[in-house]
């Protein structure tokens, strides 16, 4: 399936979904003017991917900021990943936070309580 790449802007994250390379990443800042509009192609791609996922999907969240409006859409993404995992495929969420951003790590831990997925927590530098 064709890869999806959305270049980052000052209020929207970089999205890279590439099945061939096994690269799944959302990184940067998420506070789009219209969250539903922004995330629709992202969710559509993942729903499509769900029908034929890799045996192991490693999904990187590397966000420095997301607003509450984006938080629901992030949960929607995780729920699709959860469905993939329920199909018997391995899914690992790598939740990466900027060093010293404990709130971001806690946000990841909260998501981990809401979905049945394996989370790894990592730190990255600026």
């Amino acid at each position, binding site marked *: 399936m064709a890869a999806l790449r959305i270049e980052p802007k000052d209020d929207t994250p970089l999205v890279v979904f590439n099945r061939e390379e096994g690269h799944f990443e959302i990184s940067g800042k998420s506070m789009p003017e219209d969250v539903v509009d922004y995330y629709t192609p992202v969710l559509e791609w993942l729903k499509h991917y769900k029908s034929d996922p890799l045996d192991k999907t490693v999904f990187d969240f590397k966000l420095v900021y997301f607003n*509450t409006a984006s938080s629901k859409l992030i949960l929607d993404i995780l729920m699709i990943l959860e469905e993939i995992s329920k199909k018997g495929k391995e899914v690992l969420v790598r939740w990466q936070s900027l060093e010293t*951003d404990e*709130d971001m790590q806690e946000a990841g831990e909260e998501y981990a309580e809401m979905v049945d997925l394996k989370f790894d927590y990592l730190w990255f530098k600026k």
Partner: protein
Amino acid sequence: MDDIQGYFSLIEEHYSKLLAKEIIVAYDGDVTHQVMKAITSMVEEKLENEKEKEPVRRKLYHIMVECLQNVNRHAEAFYGDGKDHYPGRGALLVSQSEKYYIVFTANVIRTSHVNDLETFLKKINPLSGDKLNDLYKDKLMEGSLSSKGGAGLGFIDIRRKTSNEMEFSFVKKDEEISFFLFSVKITR
């Protein structure tokens, strides 16, 4: 409260009751997405230059965005006395004292919405820690964002980003519209 001057004196009156402070930004007008981005990055840059601690900066940024988005989504129109308040219009003040940053917003809401909003804010204000986190998760899991995309998450998130209770008041203009005044302190 018949004109814009009245609107400002209301803000001033409320503002003067807050602690001695220095105003970082004062804005009144259309709170668009672009305005929100401009104001928040301006404040962020100023605090970075002043070497404010990163976690404090992050909290303030977070809270400013949510406050401004509340105004952007929920400020109602009000047309009276030739002075129009269009939807999405509001005022913002960000100030600093030795101990705190204070974010203050004011906007018009429907009088019929005052009760629900007040009840909600009073409900979440005394909560802390795990209870707020649980409520946040519940709201998130409930799913559907309101038609305006809020779902009350914004206020819950503002509350849990700071150890200080939010302050708010409602000033009824008439049966149609009221002013909603809101402020939150972020400990430095």
